């Protein structure tokens, strides 16, 4: 599973970092980025919740 963030849509709300800190982090300017794009199956549920929680739908996942 591969995770990406659309920087144009990201608002830097920090929600994804709260929900899946293993996968997401935030830079000094407040923009989220993906730490490790290849996500293990164990983290899939957390990433799914982050995708659904993102207020602007900035996170996408490909199988």
């Amino acid at each position, binding site marked *: 599973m591969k995770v990406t963030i659309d920087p144009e849509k990201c608002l830097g*709300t*920090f929600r994804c970092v709260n929900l899946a800190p293993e996968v997401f982090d*935030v830079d000094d300017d407040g923009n989220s980025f993906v730490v490790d794009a290849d996500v293990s199956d164990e983290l899939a549920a957390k990433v799914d919740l982050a995708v659904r929680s993102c207020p602007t739908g900035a996170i996408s996942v490909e199988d």
Partner: protein
Amino acid sequence: MAIIDFDYAAFPGNRDPYPIYAQMRDTGRVLRSSDGAVMVTRYDDVRNTHADFSGFSMAAMGGDMMGQISRADDAVLEELSTDEAVGLANTLLTIDPPSHDTIRRVVNRAFTPRSIIDREERVREIARELLAPLAKGEPFDIVTQFAGPLPTIVIAEMLGVPPEDMYRFVQWSKVTGTDAMSMSAETTRQFRTELREYFAAQVADRKKNPTDDLIGRMAAANDEQVMSDIEVVASCELFLSAGNDTTMRLLSNMIVALGRHPEQRERLVDDAGLIPNGVEEALRYDPPVQFLFRASKEEAVVGDTEIAPGELVLTMLACANRDADVFDDAETFDVGRPDIMHVSFGHGIHYCIGSPLARQESRVGIEELLDVAPTWKVLTSDDDIEYDPTGLLRGPKSFMVQV
């Protein structure tokens, strides 16, 4: 559109608005309030309404028209006092894309999650100092002695207000919240003018002498002058008006809920790791902001209902948070509830920019409270809790507890 007996502007039922929200969800997805607003009641519709920022506008409520004066016409602006100009200036709350995106980018660069994370130990210190009278065994007002001062002091320090200015700054801060309702018009005007002139002087100073506080970072983030100085001042004021009262009510409502549900409090005492989830549940169960406002434009649609242009549309957040299609046992306060995706910070591009700070202050506040007083007794009975006579913001005016 069915009409429901609910007066959003002066809702007197704030002691417990949840029965009428249940009635709203049962009555229809889109309703009209008795005072004429359109209300969106269900969870998915509320999220979709917020996501559709071109159909449901912030600017169309009047903000943009005023903002155009402050940006486009310097001659008009120069005639105004600082106080008047700030009152007319654009903020994130009064504009739509594309200008919203431009300003949000500037504010984001200043008000970063990192700058919030780095101050966590200081937030904890402030919480601990405020809780000292409770720790000593005195009767303690959660609202006025803890939940109110905590966010006010935290944001003042973040902004870079020095200790010698702190007292008067905290006094001025009151005009940005519901405390203003009990002030004389003259005091309100005086405090607001002093606050705005103080911010304006600080912003001007930071442009010459950069600092790493929030005012300094706002001035630096606006180095390309995409905002006017007056708009920077208005944004600084928005940190207070959008953050202080709301966080106070979030913490207060959570503590009231924990007081009523001692078994839930015990779960948080036994496992402090559950506190962040408990904060999310408190946000869902009894949010500080009960609904938000939009103005409909030509293409506004909720589900299969077309909404005429120019309607005032209320997204009923607290009502949507108890939508049984989304939340099991939605009326139950359960700090262990999984996947809590409430809409209490909104949704879409206007999602609360202060949410990382509100979440941190609430988590740290509850951690410290439960450390000082794992079991407190409630001195204010349910019948004696007073709420402000407004439907918009919900929280007790006072809530007495004792170890």
